[in-house]
């Protein structure tokens, strides 16, 4: 599912636009876009076995192995804040578990008073050698948006690196 870096927001660290036929797809695309930044890729290939981060020789050996599968449920009043929290979860897992996650089943839907997201995430440990990744500090509110278009949905996200 598609996403593309944005060049029309000046001098930011990393910005992208993601698309999808429905909300589930656009949220998944945005997740993959953040993952691509962490892996320093410009596409959304899902295999990260050949990449990952460097830790020094005293590095990630002591980290807990990530849960192979985890469920995520989020509730927010606004759709763009729901996207922000969803993407922030990837950054949390990157640090807390030293793992990069892909998205399995994903549902974004309206609920009373706002929006609900339920997702299954599958994790792999960040590698210890041959790093090409770039750390992401935060998903920002700058230009953050999720809009319906004639073709489906699109999201705009700016990351602080």
């Amino acid at each position, binding site marked *: 599912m598609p996403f593309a870096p944005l060049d029309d927001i000046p001098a930011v*660290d990393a910005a992208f636009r993601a698309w999808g036929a429905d909300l589930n797809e656009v949220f998944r695309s945005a997740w993959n876009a953040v993952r691509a930044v962490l892996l320093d890729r410009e596409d959304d290939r899902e295999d990260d076995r050949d990449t990952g981060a460097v830790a*020094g020789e005293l590095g990630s050996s002591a980290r807990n192995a990530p849960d192979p599968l985890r469920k995520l449920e989020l509730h927010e009043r606004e759709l763009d804040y729901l996207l922000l929290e969803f993407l922030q979860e990837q*950054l*949390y897992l990157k640090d807390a578990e030293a793992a990069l996650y892909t998205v399995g089943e994903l549902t974004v839907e309206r609920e009373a008073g706002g929006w609900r997201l339920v997702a299954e995430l599958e994790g792999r440990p960040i590698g210890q050698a041959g790093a090409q990744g770039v750390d992401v500090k935060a998903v920002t509110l700058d230009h953050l948006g999720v809009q319906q278009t004639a073709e489906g949905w699109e999201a705009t996200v700016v990351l602080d690196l």
Partner: protein
Amino acid sequence: MGLSQFIHRVDNALWELAPEYKDGMRVPVRVYAGKALFEAMEPEVLEQAANVACLPGIVGYSFCMPDGHRGYGFPIGGVAAFDPESGVISPGGIGFDINCGMRLIATALTEEEVRPVLSELVEKLFRAVPSGVGGTGLLKLSRDEFRELIAEGAPWCIDRGYGIPEDAELTEEGGCMAGADPELVSERAIERGYQQVGTLGSGNHYLEIQVAQREHLADPDAAAALGITRANQVLLMLHTGSRGFGHEVASASLKRFLQVMNDTYHLGVRDRELACAPFAAPEGREYFAAMQCAVNMAFANRQVILHRVREVFAEVFHRDPLELGLRQIYDVTHNTAKLEEHVVDGSARELLVHRKGATRAFAPGMPDIPERYRDLGQPVIIGGSMETGSYLLLGRAEGAATFYTTAHGSGRVMGRRQAKRTFDSAQLQRELAERGIVVRAASRSGLAEEAGGAYKSIDEVVAAADAGGLSRPVAKLLPIGNIKG
């Protein structure tokens, strides 16, 4: 009317944007920059500084330092002081990387002594200091130990053998902000941070081996008093912050402030990244205490990295690191908010000073400067690109105009993606090697993002800060080895 019609040049290195420019501006914007730097600033910098000028309780001016560039909420290089009773605190005025900062370490070695083992040193430092995505540090801490560390900062590490007491004495705030309260930090923040003490991160974070050449000493006497006494003396400069822990504290607080600023406090802001709360309100005070935990985490992070640096030098030179003269010159933070006393309209008053990509630069004689430096002024460490060099500066009395604040680095002129398209990492690494600069990077493409051409001229930034009375240069330090996150 356009932006330019509201700008006038106050002095050679000072520009002012009148409060009539935008509805709601409570104070003018002041930008410290020479003509070329000012004209090269993106218009968004002034827009962001003008938005800051609209925040409740702001005192004096909304400032932008000479290295100012577009940020999130505040511009990078943004400085604003607020009345603690009527004003606000904003994570957007501090940054996601709370207490991102610089540490400068002297050695007693010269370039001639280090050159023969430079590649080995760079490689061993790269392996000793974890970098890149995630990254787990040297210290294997329990969550409870981490809570102690964020309450006590660098001294907690020193008490356990990761440094010497002098390191903390020569760190801003003594390496610990006393108001830190771990009870106000979320479990998520603890989980993100407790295994990252002693890690570099990525982006523009680095550990650099530098040389102070005699011809680049602007004030040799001051340089000597700070510990630079030999020709071609080797130093180390470290740039990193509070890692995932600080990022989580900032992101969570931003979200909390978004919820309460309109519903509870009826604070309208022009940019969601300027989400804020009254400093006197529970949300403001609690964020301040959590932020100080992140400040302490960053001081501890840099302390543990210094310890690793000492170990590597001892291994390579087969001598005790203190015999090798590995002594800290100073450690500064450039992403914080602090309560400080300043004179406003002739009266001393307490202010909450936000500095985002800006460095405190106290004048000679001020009590918070370590005693051995008090007559000189506060040391300021300005990081440049891996190609162009960095600076050691001193604070000065005229800095009162900006609540004693100066620049923090070069400031980007090119986005990271544009830099990656413009510069080739492999070619850059070869060219640096030809110039005698050995680079080891966790991310090869990240190397291109940090090319010298992606940044403003650090010489112009330092000159503007000097001309504006914010700080004065002591030494320019040239890179010979760089470990890039």
